[in-house]
């Protein structure tokens, strides 16, 4: 009788204590996620460097490096840290290609790179770091088309100032 009443009373206080403290919320909230501000388009881009090329006003930049023997693609931040990379030097890609350089290699590298960027959550990249007269060549055009078809937008959203 009494014991039963006391157990029910204690259970009720437990659930009350459980959720009544949830209401207490600190007025200032800090989000430690380093990718939060850039995904909300509120982070700063390095707007200086206007007299040099390539400029550094981006959150993520896509850089395609075509050497004599291989083709490599990097997505990096403005401070130079590489976030996602793909290259025909990797065994996973090299085994399926006849030659690790050339237009076919660039096209397939674009497809693989687009998949890896989407998996890493990078949907917008800046693709301005290509030499203007080289931009018209077949391999870079195929790479760009493969990235667009893969779902990555090659244009970063404008920062929200107000």
């Amino acid at each position, binding site marked *: 009788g009494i014991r039963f009443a006391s157990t029910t009373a204690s259970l009720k206080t437990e659930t009350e*204590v*459980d*959720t009544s*403290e*949830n*209401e*207490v*919320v*600190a007025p200032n*909230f*800090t*989000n*430690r*996620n*380093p*990718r*939060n*501000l850039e*995904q*909300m388009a*509120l982070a700063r881009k390095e707007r200086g460097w206007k007299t040099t090329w390539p400029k550094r006003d981006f959150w993520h930049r896509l*850089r395609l*490096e075509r*050497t004599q023997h291989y083709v490599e693609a990097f997505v990096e*931040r403005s*401070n*130079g*840290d*590489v*976030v*996602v*990379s793909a290259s025909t030097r*990797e*065994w*996973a*890609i*090299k*085994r*399926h*290609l*006849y*030659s690790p350089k*050339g*237009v*076919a290699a660039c*096209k*397939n590298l674009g*497809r*693989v790179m687009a*998949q*890896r960027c*989407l*998996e*890493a*959550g*990078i949907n917008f990249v800046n693709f301005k770091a290509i*030499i203007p007269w*080289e931009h018209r060549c*077949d391999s870079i055009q*195929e790479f760009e088309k493969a990235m667009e078809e893969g779902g990555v937008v090659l244009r970063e959203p404008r920062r929200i100032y107000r």
Partner: protein
Amino acid sequence: MAAPLLSTALRGARGGRCFGTAGVLWKRAAPLGPMPNEDVDVDKLEVLEKYRSFARYWRQAERESREPRWWNTYRKHSDPPAEPQTDIGLPRVRLSRAKEIKERKRILRENHRNAEMERAARLRTVLIPLDDVRAEWERTSGPFHKQRVAKHCGVFRDLFQGATFTPWVALRVQYSQEDEHLVPVYYGNMVTPSEASSPPAVSYEADKGSLWTLLLTNPDGHLRDADSEYLHWLVTNIPGSDIKAGKEMCHYLSPFPAMGTGYHRFIFLLFKQHGPIDFSQDARPTPCYSLKMRTFSTFDFYRKHKDAMTPAGLAFFQCRWDSSVTSTFHQLLNMREPVFEFVRPPTYHPPQVKFPRHQPLRYLDRYRDTEEPTYGIY
């Protein structure tokens, strides 16, 4: 630099107003390292190898810009120098390298002999199978790439205070929806809270008889303390890869990133246990909707059990507010929903100077406490 100072000093000594040179701050000294282009022999320019193309020059310039320099650079100021990272993961299992290289060379030789592959490459019709590439990547360079992305998302900094590990075990996490649609979780992709409302299907390669622990934590969402995390799911002593057979210490709670706070990371950690561990201290009551009980610190949890388990797998997703979070707050957590707003840090102005040079009248407006603009008032 010495000549103007000497003449001003002499002018001061001869007559007229004295000019003190006690304010000289610099003194000439040898440079602390090699000057740039010191190794270029300017006398023998014909012998020097030229770039002959902009692309070659640009590639060299990019490589040089990433080199650390002995003079002060913005990079040194903004990025702190990397400390040596302690590795807390599993040791790497290296198979016979010579056999691997021999096998790869054989495959490449076959590719070169294959006429169809050559024709497809020449006509640019070759399309490599992305699934096979991904499977091979997960086995070879996947763990390193995942570690790199996790480092940039601050996972190691926030969960383990800098200690890193390479996720050798490929963790496949998939949320299934009502219409048989599967939402996978890779390293950093976007998943909405309504998609993540029920526990996901987790699979990984495990030997028979091995024990694992799976943990889902949110380091960003804590409403009271910025340094602690919320525990969303803890399953321990999992035999092999069968999650259902493991002991669920804390039942699954769907993500609840508050409105206005932006994107939160939700990190799945897979630990390999060396033997059965007693997790009774970390057991939460079965319907645990108290945020105080869910407050968690992965660093303390790992430090408590670090002799008995090592981190082996990692997967994380980014999540932001949507309407299902409101129902989570109201029904499950039994509280009013908090709504936040982004507050910009105040714009920086350099310290005020008594006689500012080349500044407009609104210079004074920047330092006044009240709002009294000096323009637009007429």
